[in-house]
Structure formats: C-alpha cells, structure tokens
C-alpha cells in the first residue's frame, strides 16, 4: 500500500534519514523517532508537499510524483496535532470538507457525500457533538472530528502527525480505540507518529522507527519496546538508575 525504495530525505540540503526497502500494508502502524529525526518531514513527503528527496515513494504502486495533487488527495488523508477552523463551521461542516476532492468546481454536495458523512458519524459515534460549532468543542472532540474528516476523505492511507500531542490521558486512550476501530472496520493503512511507545504493542502491527539517520520497519510486536529503548540508549539509563 505504501512503499519506500532507496529513499533518502533531506532538509535544506542536509541528510535527514534514509530507507532502503520498506513496504507497509494496511493496519495501524506507528512512526517513532526522537525530536528532530524527521517524522513530520516523512509524513509531509508522503503527502507530496516536500520534494527534497531521492529514491521512490509509492502509493498503490504508483510514485507520488505521478499523482496530480487532487488525485493524491483521494489516496492519502492527514490529521495534524492541532487544528483550527476559520469561520463558524459545525463539526458536520468540517467532516464535509473531506468530500472536497470528489466535488465539482462549485463544491456541490451530492447525496452520496451526505451519506458518506452520516456513515462516518455513526462509525465514530460523533452524534453527540457533530452539530455543535467546531471552535467550541474540546480538544479531544476536535481531534475526533478531524479524524472523522480524514476517514470521510475515503483514502487508502490516513496519516496522523502526533494526533495525541495535546490530549489528556483519557482522550489519548479514546483516540487509540478509535484508530483501532477504524483499522478493524476498513482496509486502510493508518500511520501515526507518536512519542508514547508503551501502548504500541497492543495497537500496532508494525512500527516505523527513525533513528541515527535510518528508517526501519519493526514487525514483531514483542520486540517493539526493547528495540526502541535499545536504539534510544534507554536501557542503559534505566540500569544506571537501579
């Protein structure tokens, strides 16, 4: 579904990280790495918004360069860690934004668009607050709406850039349950970057780890934590503390 081949990503000419051959299938995948290793840059690059890379990124077996911007929006959706809406849009209005890539030049809403939105409201149980104004929702509710919007966009891949960064413990937990629920009920690839690694074995089937300029795919949930701690040099610190 998403594949990297001989990928090297740079920022302002500086080498950030490289990946040799990585192939990711549907399901939940976490993107882990320390601050500044390039998690956000990777997500941006997959979105086609960063052209500074060599090698190949393939979505549905086509390189991302071969997509027209409007067509790529039908393949990949994204959720950022914080979002704000300019205007008095309701949650439902925001969900409808996900249908934009499919609409004509006048953004005419079709019956199908509305049905799609209703379906996602049901799927993610957003009824309680979906008709309130987006700007008055809590951070947790806002994030659920934005995830809903990404699902409404009806793409094979959903990227999430630290979606839980501004959420409290309960909301984080809820968010993970929602992601799991989406993964179970659809055939999507859900790739989210995070710093909260402890919960990953229960959620993810794989992890993309960026460390020391290298991107690697971890596919054995039992080894997730130890591999991450090892590469971050954390085990040593813990031993010292004991």
């Amino acid at each position, binding site marked *: 579904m998403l594949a990297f081949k001989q990928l090297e990503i740079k920022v302002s000419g500086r080498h950030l990280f490289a990946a040799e051959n990585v192939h990711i299938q549907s399901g939940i995948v976490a993107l882990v790495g320390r601050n500044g290793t390039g998690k956000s840059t990777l997500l941006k690059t997959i979105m086609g918004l960063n052209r500074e890379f060599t090698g190949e990124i393939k979505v549905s077996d086509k390189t991302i360069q071969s997509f027209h911007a409007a067509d790529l*929006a039908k393949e990949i959706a994204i959720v950022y860690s914080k979002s704000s809406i*300019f205007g*008095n*849009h309701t949650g439902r209005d925001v969900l409808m*934004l996900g249908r*934009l890539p499919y609409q004509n030049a006048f*953004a005419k809403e079709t019956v199908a668009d509305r049905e799609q939105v209703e379906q996602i409201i049901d799927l993610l149980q957003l009824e309680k607050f979906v008709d309130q104004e987006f700007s008055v929702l809590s951070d947790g509710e806002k994030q659920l709406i934005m995830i809903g919007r990404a699902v409404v966009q009806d793409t094979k891949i959903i990227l999430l850039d630290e979606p839980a960064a501004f959420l409290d413990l309960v909301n984080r937990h809820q968010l993970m349950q929602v992601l799991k629920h989406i993964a179970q009920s659809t055939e999507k690839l859900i790739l989210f970057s995070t710093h909260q690694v402890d919960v990953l074995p229960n959620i993810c089937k794989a992890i993309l780890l960026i460390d020391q300029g290298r991107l690697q795919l971890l596919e054995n949930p039992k080894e997730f934590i130890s591999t991450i701690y090892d590469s971050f040099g954390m085990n040593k610190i813990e031993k010292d503390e004991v």
Partner: protein
Amino acid sequence: MSLRSDIPLFSVLIIGVFILFWMNLLLGDVPMKTADVFNILTGGVADNSAWSYIIESRLNRSVVAILAGGALAVSGLILQVFFRNPLAGPGVLGITSGASLGVAVVILGGITMGSFLGNLGVIMAGVIGAIAVLLLLIFIARFIKNSVTLLVAGLMFGYFTAALINVLFLWANETDTREYVVWGLGSFEGVNSTELMIFALLIVTLSLLCFLLVKPLNALVAGVDYAASIGINIKTTRLFIIVFTGILAAVVTVYCGPVGFIGIAVPQLVRVLVKSKNHAVIIPIVFFAGSFLALSADFIVRMSSNSLPLNTVTAIVGAPIIVWVIIKMNQRNVSF
C-alpha cells in the same frame, strides 16, 4: 447544510439592492416625478434638459456603488479566509494604500484622469501598487505566523505610503494636488458612461473569476496544511488570490477613491448570517451584501446633498459591525 437555507438571505439582499437602486434613481435634491424618471430612462425628453444628465448621473453612481461595494466585499472575504483573520481587508492590509500610491504617482505627476490613456495609466498604476503591497505582505507572512502582527505590518504600509504621498505633494502643483485630494475623499460619483463600461467589465469579469477560488477557499478555512492535503494547489491559489483581490480593490480604489470598512464589515457580517459554508454560495451573498451596504451609504450621502463624505458614512455603518463581530467572536472564545 443545504443551499436552500440561504435563499431567504439572498432574496432579501437582492430585493434590498433593487429597492435602494430605485430609491437612488427616484430621490434626490432635484425632485422629479416617477413618471418623468421613467420617461427619461426610456429615452424620453424632460422639460429641463439637465434632468437626463441628472438621471444618468444617479444611474451611473448607483451602478458604481453596486459594483464597487460588491468588489470590495468579495476582495475582503477572500483576504479574510486566506489570512484567516476577520480583521483582514483591502483597507487594513494596506492594499488600498498601495493603489493610492500608484494613483498619487500618476496624478501628482501631472496626468489627468480625464483622457482615456490617463485612465488606463491610473488603473495600471493602482493595480501595480496594490499587487506590490500584497506581494510584500505575503513575503512578510512567511516570517510572521501571527496574523495580528501581519495586520500591523499592513497598517504600517498604509502609514508609509501616506507619508510617501505627502512627500510627493512637495513637487506637485496646486491643481494636481487638489485633484488627488478630491479623489482621496472617496465617492461613487463622477464615473461617466464610458468609464463605467470599463469599470463594470473589469469588476464583473474578476468577480466571476473569483468562483475559481470556491474549492480553495472552502479548504483554506482549515488552514494551508489541510487545504494542501485535500488537493488544493497552494501556489496557484495564492497567485489567483493576489491577482484577483489586488485588481478588484485597485480598480475600485482608482475609480472611487479609498473606500473603507465595506471590505472588512460585509464578509464578517455575512459569515455570521449565512448557513452554507460553501463559497460558491458565500461569494454571491457577500457581493450583494457589499452592494447593499455601498448603496445604502451612497443613499445617505446623497440625502445629505453630498455634504457627508462617503468614508464618513461607511465608517459610521461599518465600524460598529466590526466591533460587534469581534465581541461576538471573543464571547465564543475564538482565537484569531
């Protein structure tokens, strides 16, 4: 939300514009019978040979008000969404000032607006000035993420260009200075029928072109990053926004002088009133709301025998709307 829910608002505006348009034609310092006005409009002759000119002038300034008000409001709407700031508008961001500087250079340089070439020169200069300021703003916006700071930068452009124009006065002769000062007061009056054709052509064409921005604007309410993720080409969008809003504001400014408040107040008000979030619906509503406000302002100006300057009236009507919207937004804890 369905389109249908905004039909009452749209109808009220259209009817309001229609009524004001006729009031502007029928009422004035020179009292005329409705029959006389219709007679003149249908090509008839009146007892007083000046009346046909008076009706033509009333007609022209009403059409100018409708187009100029609409253009300023649409330009303000697009800028507010693009800069994600309800206080943005052609006036606040200094775009009008840029156009003024262009006009000042041409007029104070001694070219009068009367001739066709002079006209074209002034329009070009105004457009160049407006777009130059917009480009500068967008350049600065790369370094300033805080949109309030950006507005302050826009205000500074305004002061800076005003200062430059004052410097230009030093070299200008009395007649040119007077011509510029008169222009600077702002008015929908004084556009003759030939000029009106050019004006209408430009405004209508550009306003229609703004519909190319429907999807980008719908997406941009969520910010540039989200807009890009739903397939909006940000570079093209930015270019279109600069060109369309710049030319719209500049053309109005060249013909009517710097007209304030319509560009900020109308989009704000409409955003509160309108149900749809689709700019294919919002753009025409904002246009006619702008026309409505401009016509009302002009009607008040005319009822005062032209003794109230247009900008005084737009300020009296517009400023309270802006303050009201700001208060309303603060109540709902919306951050700019």
